[in-house]
């Protein structure tokens, strides 16, 4: 067959192809290994060199023009296929759900609090929940028989030591870690301690026997109450937003001096006074203060050289304030209808 005739026949056939399958059949027929062009190219191998070169060149020109035509036909067929409107394409059908797991709101709050402090150079560490009286009380300037123990109703472990004492308890706060960290580290210290704590008390909408805290401790030369105020105000801003007001007032914790109670203005009433804030306009969110000299000297820190601040936040309280949760017991009920709301 003449090459030009072959070309015309092939191009005419190409026009007839209606879809990609027909196009593939066309390609196998005209451009395949057993197709006429391949046969032609094989058949000229016995021709003299010059003749072979001339015939080969023209055959390859035809081949390449057919390949180009095939390519452009393929593109137009594909385009035609895509643009054909598909019946049954109901975009309103729900998407196939991807598995979506969520963290418990307490974990989310822990992370937000810790991240705020980490941005200020604090390291996150954890400590034991079952503690010795020494770490939970004595080393924190609360000797046996001290009235301040009434501030921390305690679960005692049924455990008796050699001397007949009962020194094992469930920690009532994360503060024992202040002592444990300082025992192991020389200043400068900057840590936050997220953790579970226990109080011996009946449960109701605002009280839980088991809850969570984040403790913080910074000790170095030249750390002041003004630094504490600056640090906590910055964290309150990160957690609650720019426009909230904060308040520092004096209070008592045995392991700090001076002691601080920090509150933010009530978001419900904007400080006017309502049921949520018991009419005060303020919501207490944490206790803090300068680490008591007795606590520093007990771990062997030089109180002339070092000062420090410490604070403890109630995680449930902060989560409740941020999300408007009105019953603390929800955190331990693990009802999916509750948990799923915290994306």
């Amino acid at each position, binding site marked *: 067959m003449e090459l030009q005739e072959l070309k015309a026949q092939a191009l005419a056939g190409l026009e007839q192809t209606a879809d990609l399958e027909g196009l593939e059949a066309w390609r196998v027929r005209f451009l395949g290994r057993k197709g006429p062009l391949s046969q032609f190219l094989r058949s000229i191998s016995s021709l003299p060199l010059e003749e072979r070169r001339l015939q080969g060149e023209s055959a390859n020109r035809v081949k390449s023009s057919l390949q180009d035509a095939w390519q452009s036909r393929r593109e137009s067929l594909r385009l035609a296929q895509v643009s054909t409107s598909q019946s049954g394409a109901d975009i309103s059908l729900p998407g*196939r759900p991807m598995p*979506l*797991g*969520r963290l*418990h709101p307490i*974990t989310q709050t822990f992370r937000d609090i810790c991240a705020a402090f980490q941005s*200020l*150079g604090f*390291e996150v560490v*954890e400590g*034991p*929940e*079952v503690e010795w009286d020494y770490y939970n009380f004595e080393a924190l300037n609360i*000797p*046996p*028989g*001290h*009235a*301040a123990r009434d501030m921390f109703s305690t*679960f*005692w*472990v049924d*455990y008796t030591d050699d001397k007949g004492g009962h020194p*094992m308890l*469930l920690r009532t706060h994360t503060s024992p870690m202040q002592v444990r960290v300082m025992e192991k*580290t020389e*200043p*400068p*210290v900057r840590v936050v301690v997220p953790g579970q704590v226990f109080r*011996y*008390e*009946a*449960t109701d909408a605002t009280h839980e026997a*088991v809850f969570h805290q984040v403790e913080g401790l910074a000790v170095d*030369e*030249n*750390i*002041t*109450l*003004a*630094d504490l*105020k*600056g*640090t906590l*105000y910055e964290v309150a801003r990160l957690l609650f937003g720019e426009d909230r007001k904060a308040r*520092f*007032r*004096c*209070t008592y914790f045995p392991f700090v*001096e*001076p002691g601080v109670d920090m509150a933010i203005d009530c978001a419900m009433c904007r400080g006017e006074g309502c049921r949520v804030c*018991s009419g*005060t306009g303020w919501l207490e969110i944490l206790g803090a203060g*300068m680490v*008591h000299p007795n606590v520093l000297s007990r771990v062997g820190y030089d109180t002339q050289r070092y*000062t420090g601040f410490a604070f403890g936040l109630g995680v449930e309280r902060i989560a409740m304030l941020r999300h408007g949760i009105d019953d603390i017991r929800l955190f*331990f009920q*693990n*009802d999916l209808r509750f*948990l799923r709301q915290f994306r």
Partner: protein
Amino acid sequence: MKVSFRWLKEYVHTTLPPQEIAEALTMAGLEVEAGQGLGEHWEGVRVARVTGVAPHPNADRLRLATVELSGESHTVVCGAPNLSVGQKVAFAQIGARLIDGHTGQTVTLKQAKIRGVTSAGMVCSEKELGLGESHEGILELSPEAPVGAPLADYMGDTPLEVEITPNRPDCLSVLGVAREVAAITGEPIRPPALDYSEEGPPVRELASVEIADPDLCPRYCATIIQGITLGPSPRWLQERLISYGMRPINSIVDVTNYVMVEMGQPLHAFDYRTLLESKIIVRRARHGENITSLDGQKRSLNPDMLVIADAHRAVAVAGVMGGLDTEVTEGTTDILLEAANFAYASLRNTASTLKMRTEASMRFERGLSPELVPPNIKRATQLIQQVAGGRVAKGIIDVYPGMADAGAIVLEMTEIPRLLGMEIDRAEVLRVLKALGFECREDSPERLLVRPPYWRSDVRLPADVVEEVARIVGYDRLPTTVLSGRLPHRQPDTKFRLKERVRDSLSGTGLQEAITYPLVSADWLETVHCPLGLRLANPVSREQEYLRTSLRPGLLAALATNQKSGADAVRLFEVGRAYLPWEDGLPLERDTAAAVLWNGNGEALWTGRQAGADFYEAKGLVATLLYRLGTSSVDFIPSQEPFLHPSWQAAVTVGGRVVGVIGQVHPKAADVLEVTGPAFFVEIYLDAVAAESGRTVTYQHLSRFPVAIRDLALVVVEEVSARQITDILSSSPLVTEVTLFDLYRGRPIPAGHKSLAFRMRFQSPKRTLTDTEVDRAQQQLVELLGRELGAVLRSA
């Protein structure tokens, strides 16, 4: 503590409203809430005297009363049965606002004609004034009430609810709170009178005091008053006790209570004549000793407790409660008045052992200053003389073995900016400390010698003095600064980081995090076959008696809760601690990741029903988790965990070491925990995984050569495990990956057999494999499978 604002103002002048005082005290360290004011609405109500009572012309049950106030007379119609001439009453003029006795609503009093007679106002009952429930009769005022005075001036009051922190026992008194007000406002304090006349014999001739255990009693003072007349205390005194919430008893007991509330020191009065041999001995109780306390209860004492005794017997539990035998009662004429100081820790133990937390013990427990004793006993003696008469013996017995001079506190002026981060000038420091009753000596320009007032037992260190200055100056004045200085050398808590990664991984695979209760019941732990572990000495309930030794009970209970509330599918995980007893010390708090999977009938989706949770989902979950944590050589081996279904369970190993267990919850345990349907449980001990995880990944070269993919379907008897086949398929050096993609049982596969289909990837890092090579390798594998496992190729 409830403090009457009216009473408070007796010691300090202020024109500020109670709400502002409450706010200022709160900022300075005493949390105070001003309660509902009594008399805030008594506009137009004044004290009046009844000058005449006449019958109503048109009604038998009503009378006409004439009341007089500041020269004017008014006639009112009144139905009260207890009205009589000469009474002082609360008279509401037209326009006054009152509470309607029947509806409880606040109303404005209007002029009214009652049965033909015009009433010019109203004589009020307790209820109409908001004082109480009674509106049967009118409120009769004290004969001393000043006629014409607005009732609010005469008896209006606002209760201040004061929350006293444990360090401030001095503020467990009206005077103490008044001192705070004085320091904040700068007003002077007006202390109560302490002077009285001593007309009796010298006190030492009448009684003796011996302290046998001075470690528990640093100070004991006594006075004696003879010839008193016991009766009810005067109305003003009773009203104050009532304002605090105490019941008046008799003049002597009332005075001791009054002084305690007024000045903070608990006191006790004994009937002097009942004290055998007129002796007071302060000693530890004897073994087997008993006392009947004032409340009529017989109390067993032990030598850890301190008692006040006479020559023969205990007459009071020191600082807690007096005894019945020596009670001041009808017929008492002579009293011995005690004011003492007791060691707080022992007293606290005694009060809690005897379950007697009294007003007195509550104050002693907080560590009162022994210096409070003399002014308080003087005040009480003075008041007793005033309200009950009698002759006071000369002098005071004062035994003070615990006397110690704490010395002055040296306050370097630099300490203030060092702790506070702000300067306070010297003059202001001196002014504040003086207002708080501190004595300051200016030792040098750089330092002050500071002596706290006698009532402040809590101020001992320079830091305490700095706080005093800061709280009165106000924390508002503190600047906000940022931490500067060196950053600490960081030591990341690897265990904490691992837990956070587990949380991310499990929530990332679609599970919901739960946090379950760490305190559980013995029954629950036994149900899930876990040891009991640590028990609480004082649990709130049997349901929360033990520290959990496993996360199993909590998570399964959470599953049951959600099943009951109608969930379709539940996939929960928890990362928490199990508390395992550890030799003779604190328990091992083992970080554990656990998950429970349940999928009801399968979630219904429009694209097709999702498969229900099963063993393989649990297995896949663990494999994915451990892969994410970077562990290698994870394996699942047969296990015998009684909490799980005997067939559907496996132990998880990493590097040959067991790190957890997975399986279907045993139906028996599921029943007890009220879980319905098959639930699958995963438990991984993170301490065991920790060492294997978190390695830095070393990059593997990517092969440039093509992959050949071959699928292979094999028929084997049921007993052959998929694992045996993959082990053989993976043994060829040319095979880089083997994946099971189909499992089929049923026709045409013969019974007792199954068909497993695998996809294999053949690849060399060095060259392109030829078809022949791959064919040969596959053929060898098939032959090996035939020999070892009896596997045959499934015919198409």
